[in-house]
């Protein structure tokens, strides 16, 4: 088990290191100069541009040798300093992001966990049940092939515009200020439902399909046939098959996290939900490079933490990893 976690930890540290390096590299080696771009948008006079250019180059620490910039970047990172947002000047990037994170957790955690739970159970139930396999599973294929934003757009259009039962923008009513009361909580839940539903549905389709295919593999395995031959009831055979099929689905969840993060991003854009995804869009449109860098780092940290949580869950579910035999995810 120690070896398993040791390996995982090494991968996470390497990943974090690489991600931070990429984050640092890209603005420096891309065509075009961010400071120049920023100044050209400000439409200043020629001599003012020169002064401003010098000022910003110093302010962003671009006047020291490149290796020094890299070390400074790490140093600032460990002090929680991700620079100052241009878009929401003069607030620090960390603060802007911290304000958005709770919304992401509130939206993503229930959507991921519930869709995974429901999708797996439904998929296992539908496998080799002819009528379900032929009626509801095709819906699963359609759902998992749907781009996140399109389902979001459709739901927003049908429930928000045509039927007018759900709001389609913001995290709570614009008429309210955040405070603790039933009106406010109701408003928050009301605004939360559609983005949650669109994330849930797309993911649900994927898990249901995956589980259905996995269970069919397991039901054809020797141990299942042996159990059947012994006269075990269908339910018991399926229980064993399910426990084996759930392992790849746990690994699958870890592999899907990046895609899910991207899906959440566009869903937030559709519903103007004030999480990190919405922030990234604003940052891109305003060419706020520090904010883009900061959001990227936060997504990386979030995905790494979630991966780590899944690793722990895997050890709990699969005794083989605990006993030091190499499990599947090693």
């Amino acid at each position: 088990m120690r070896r398993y976690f040791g390996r995982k930890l090494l991968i996470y540290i390497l990943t974090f290191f690489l991600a931070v390096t990429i984050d640092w590299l890209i603005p420096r080696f891309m065509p075009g100069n961010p400071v120049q771009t920023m100044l050209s948008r400000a439409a200043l006079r020629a001599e003012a541009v020169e002064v401003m250019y010098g000022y910003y180059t110093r302010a962003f620490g671009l006047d020291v040798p490149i290796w020094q910039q890299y070390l400074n970047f790490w140093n600032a990172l460990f002090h929680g300093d991700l620079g100052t947002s241009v878009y929401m000047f003069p607030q620090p990037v960390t603060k802007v992001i911290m304000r958005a994170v709770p919304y992401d957790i509130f939206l993503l955690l229930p959507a991921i966990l519930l869709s995974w739970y429901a999708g797996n159970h439904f998929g296992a139930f539908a496998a080799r049940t002819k009528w379900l396999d032929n009626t509801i599973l095709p819906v699963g294929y359609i759902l998992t092939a749907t781009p996140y934003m399109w389902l979001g757009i459709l739901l927003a259009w049908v429930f928000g515009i045509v039927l007018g039962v759900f709001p389609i923008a913001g995290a709570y009513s614009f008429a309210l200020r955040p405070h603790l009361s039933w009106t406010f909580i109701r408003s928050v839940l009301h605004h939360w439902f559609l983005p949650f539903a669109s994330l849930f549905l797309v993911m649900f389709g994927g898990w249901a399909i995956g589980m259905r295919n996995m269970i069919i593999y397991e039901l054809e395995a020797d141990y299942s046939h042996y159990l059947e031959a012994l006269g075990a009831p269908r339910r018991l055979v399926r229980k064993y098959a399910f426990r084996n099929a759930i392992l790849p689905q746990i690994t699958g969840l870890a592999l899907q996290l990046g895609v899910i993060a991207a899906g959440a991003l566009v869903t937030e854009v559709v519903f103007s939900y004030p999480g990190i995804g919405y922030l990234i869009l604003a940052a891109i449109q305003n060419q706020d490079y520090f904010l883009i860098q900061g959001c990227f780092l936060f997504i990386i940290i979030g995905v790494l933490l979630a991966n780590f949580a899944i690793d722990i869950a895997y050890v709990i579910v699969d005794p083989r990893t605990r006993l030091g035999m190499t499990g599947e995810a090693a």
Partner: protein
Amino acid sequence: MKLMRSEILYFALRNNKLRVGLTIILFFLVLTFVGPMLTHYDPYDYVNPNGAQPPSSEYWFGTTMFGQDVFTQFIHGLKATFLVGVVGGGLGTLIGILVGFTAGYRGGIFDEILNMLTNVVLVIPTLAILLIIAAYLEVRGILTESIFIGCTAWPWAARAIRAQTFSLRSREFVDLARLSGMKPRKIIFTEIAPNMMSYLLLVFILQFGGAVLAAATLDFIGLGPTNAISLGLMMNYAVLWGALLLGMWWWFIPPGVAITAIVGALYVANVGLDEVFNPKLREM
């Protein structure tokens, strides 16, 4: 050998999932090639002076807020979608094959390093990387986009192919080839790869679908091609210009339907192919 091939064809032609999937793909493929002949506009031409208009005999899919023909944009967007799928998915599969075969067949230190690399890239949310690359690139084409997508999508393919190669490596026919002095590269391409062809095809199909969805996501945030139209960009414009609030459904429904249909058909065909190649999975 010939007998086996005809058997596969027999099951392929009788597999409903495969038939449905291929029919849908074929339909869109034909539409992509025939479509440009059905319209005489350019995707960004302002053709309708009245602005937005629902579908009519003149404008089959209606027109956008600015009077652009949605059908024309749709047809050109389809082409972009297939291009991203083939180039992005193809590149992802190719890198996955190279890394997977090398790691799986060579083993040892090669495997350690490549596997570590694969795991690291696997954990990084690649779309976030694409996002920042795209954000800093000022001019972007569909081909550039596809190449970036392909370069970040390979890890899971590499991992799956590596595992398959591992299991094939210790078979007798591979041992025999090795004993007879065949070079590793030749063993990989003449002994191992042909036995994994069906598997590689499935990997390509999934990579194709993944690339299409990734491109749609990028385009939707406005980081898609700057010099062409795509289905994702259509949705981006529609949402940006308030098609939702104004109820211009004809603007955002077609691109989504096409992406969902193409990717969904690929997934269904994928499962169908799996059943054709693997008799255990066939319905009883």
